[in-house]
């Protein structure tokens, strides 16, 4: 039983990992065919993964409602809006528009989801402004360098900045294209080494946290 529960999954990871890493170097049509099928499978499995993510949300809020915890009314709102959206969506065959005319599902999308999600992040503009005033301080030489670079880029990326200080355009271009690019490149290389190391550890089962909890 332990074998089925513990060793077999690790074996699956080992085999699939090696096979799909090796696939990259094999141009033969047979190997390409395998890649085609499996990526198609991954698309379908990806759909199930979404269900998994969503269901934990279901669970958390269901408990809240059942226990009538503080703010359970909001969880109720969440449930109603979700079920309502699903019902309307299925009724509209999952289409926001048919031949350019908006369906009821499209209405929910355009007039509820789009403004809600859009505004959620627009409020950050205000918080950046207040942080700019209250806490973006040059506490150290490093922070001072950061703030100066930030001011130059902010100037150089808007017409008024370039108008007031014509050199800021070229300067910010240079910062982005040369200084920023070199740092990002180093970070990219470092992160990639990390990714490759992690992938190797996963394939050779030195890293198992992805298997998650659940009793052995």
């Amino acid at each position: 039983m332990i074998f089925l529960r513990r060793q077999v999954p690790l074996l699956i990871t080992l085999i699939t990992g090696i096979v799909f890493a090796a696939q990259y170097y094999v141009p033969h049509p047979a190997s390409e065919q395998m890649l085609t099928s499996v990526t198609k499978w991954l698309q379908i499995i990806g759909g199930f993964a979404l269900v998994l993510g969503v269901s934990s949300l279901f669970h958390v809020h269901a408990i809240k409602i059942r226990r009538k915890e503080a703010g359970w009314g909001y969880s109720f709102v969440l449930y109603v809006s979700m079920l309502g959206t699903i019902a309307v969506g299925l009724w509209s065959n999952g289409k926001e528009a048919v031949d350019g005319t908006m369906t009821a599902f499209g209405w929910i999308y355009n007039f509820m989801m789009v403004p809600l999600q859009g505004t959620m992040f627009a409020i950050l503009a205000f918080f950046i402004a207040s942080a700019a005033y209250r806490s973006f301080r040059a506490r150290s030489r490093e922070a001072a360098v950061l703030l100066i670079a930030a001011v130059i880029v902010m100037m150089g990326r808007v017409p008024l900045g370039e108008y007031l200080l014509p050199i800021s355009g070229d300067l910010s271009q240079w910062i982005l294209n040369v200084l920023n690019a070199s740092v990002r490149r180093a970070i990219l290389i470092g992160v990639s080494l990390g990714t490759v190391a992690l992938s190797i550890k996963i394939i050779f089962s030195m890293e198992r946290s992805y298997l998650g909890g659940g009793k052995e």
Partner: protein
Amino acid sequence: MTFAERMLKIDRRIIFLVIGFCTLLPLLYPVGLPIKISPEVRGVYDYIESLPEGSVFLLSLDFDPASKPELHPQAISLLRHAFRKNLRVIAMTLWVSGTGMADQVVTQVAREMGKESGKDYVFLGWSPGGTAVIINMGQDLYGAFPADYNGKPTKGLPVLQGIANLRDVSYAVSLGAGNPGVEAWYVFGKDKYKFELAGGCTGVMAPGLYPLLRSGQINGLIGGLRGAAEYEILIGQKGKAVAGMDAQSATHLAIIVLVIICNVFYLSLRKTTRQQAHSGT
């Protein structure tokens, strides 16, 4: 409490109001400052200009409503340009919550330019799996998207004639707000299937894409609302991005002024505390 301390402790809602007005006023009373074109954006424009009629242009709208103000105008300009050049347009999205928006923008621009779905362009919709979708399209486009957004089978669509997979795409642009986005299109797409690629992205993403731009992994980069405004100028059709540039100028200036005030107060505070410390001992 000193003056500086008191000033630093003012209610932040006052700052909120300042920023609100800095955005609102230029939107209501635009000035229209000139906008310079950067080489990154010109790279995309020039490449589309150089494509012969009937080339395949793939636009992946990989964003959701949260990034709409930045990437929506980019999508409109790119589509207008591609349709004007009579390219065959394939549009799609890797972000599920962006599907409706992507459909809307494609349909709207196509209608405005008198293009027909299935013949001049196709909107494939969304498919789950993120990077797996890109690989699958590279292997077999019809396997990844058996039907387009409207449920029509993709096999046999006139616009897709002669296209088997991503290798047959002349130019792909990913408008990415995160992951999967521009980087994924390079790693899982261009790296193997060898189409030319460019990126459009939100301001948050833009600095991170410069290494790819330099190494030629993407041949152009449209960054944020500013990039969109530049593209609107390039195709000669000003839209929401150009209209927003004045407000962008005003808010940037406001932030810069706020940062400077903050540091002036901070430094003066530090000076006084140091002096006090000195005199105290």
